[in-house]
């Protein structure tokens, strides 16, 4: 069971950090695609969805190609900073973030597009900078839709194992996330351990999602039956 706890903590660290990254990237890219009209916008949107279409293991393989010491990026990192990402929890985080990113961008974009631009305009007439308008009007009004995506992304990051296994390996206490531990338990025929860990993951996920759900405002009532 010690394995399970260690793996759970690692999973939370990895998924949490990946979600944080995706929160920033997803909101940024989602907003950008909602507001800027540029050539190839829809194509870019679609390409950003592609990580979903690939089997995670295959994605992991490409990541390995990208981050490994034999790639120019990996080589550069290694030469200048002595960093080798393969077999580190940082690599697991990158994998989880990439896999979950589409889940955050698409709903975020849809949410931003749903914000009434007149409200932003009025805020502008009051002398607010674009950044202030974003944080005081756009983001709060789009928040419900964004949060839905972020929570999905968190769940996905927590469950990710195909790509993670490839780039981070499965080193107990170092890169063995809960998902990988569950997978290995199933592979090793240890159903009891696997079930326990699945239950653990589920409970943790439920608790976190429920808590995070409280961050969304309720439905605006308008004329809802009183």
């Amino acid at each position: 069971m010690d394995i399970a706890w260690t793996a759970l903590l690692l999973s939370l660290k990895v998924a949490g950090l990946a979600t944080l990254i995706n929160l920033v990237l997803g909101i940024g890219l989602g907003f950008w695609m909602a507001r800027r009209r540029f050539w190839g916008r829809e194509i870019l949107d679609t390409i950003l969805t592609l990580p979903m279409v690939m089997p995670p293991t295959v994605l992991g393989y490409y990541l390995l190609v990208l981050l490994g010491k034999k790639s120019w990026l990996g080589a550069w990192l290694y030469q200048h900073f002595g960093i080798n990402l393969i077999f580190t929890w940082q690599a697991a985080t990158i994998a989880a973030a990439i896999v979950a990113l589409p889940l955050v961008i698409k709903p975020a974009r849809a949410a931003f597009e749903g914000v009434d631009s007149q409200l932003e305009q009025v805020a502008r007439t009051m002398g607010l900078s674009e950044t202030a308008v974003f944080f005081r009007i756009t983001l709060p009004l789009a928040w419900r839709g964004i949060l839905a995506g972020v929570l999905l992304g968190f769940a996905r990051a927590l469950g990710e194992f195909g790509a993670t296994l490839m780039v981070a390996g499965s080193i107990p206490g170092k890169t063995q996330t809960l998902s990988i531990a569950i997978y290995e338990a199933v592979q090793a025929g240890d159903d009891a351990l696997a079930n326990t860990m699945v239950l653990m993951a589920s409970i943790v996920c439920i608790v976190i999602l429920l808590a995070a759900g409280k961050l969304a405002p309720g439905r605006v009532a308008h004329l809802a039956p009183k």
Partner: protein
Amino acid sequence: GELNVSAASSLTNAFKDIAQSYQHQYPGTKLQLNFAASGALLQQLVKGAPVDVLATADQDTMDAAEKQDLILIKERKDFVRNSLVLIQPMNATIKIARLEDLQQGAVKRIAIGNPASVPVGRYAQLALQAARVLPSIEGKLINTVNVRQALDYVARDEVEAGFVYASDAALMLDKVKVAAQIKIDKTITYPVAVTKDSNNQIEAKRFAQFLASPTAQAIFRKYGFKPL
């Protein structure tokens, strides 16, 4: 120091035990075990993963590593043997004793590792070819991506028979029974090697040698492997 050991998934249980004994004997060393399919391990190594010791489930993968100049050829050696078995669900009534028995109509599905990527599937294919039954049962074969998936199908009674290693069958003796030991021309041996890029080759060699020690071999036997 720290030692990164990449080992095939089928070695998972045995290597975890062995690592403990090893660290008990050499307290100065911290073993980091990384398990995955042999093919995945190779890919990681090719792309520059910091691996000191590589242990695969088949010779082909290790050959590929050797060809790409990733391992010290001198330090490559086999450390344990496995055998191919044909298994049936525990309470199966169909009688299967030889490969030819797979041709009977009652046998509708046979689980086998995908020969393209899973060593155990390649061995099974060789055996079926040698017994000249392959063409007549080809339509019954269910390809799996690893040996565990084949074991699982048999254990769940979804297929009438399956090819696995003796060490895998040993994990589930309450759900599957061994119908036949399958003899093949090749011996199924597991090779281990020290990698070229290892910056801890002395300890890596020591661990590779430890696999042949009586302590390690006893553990392997416990999990259904055979000595060389």
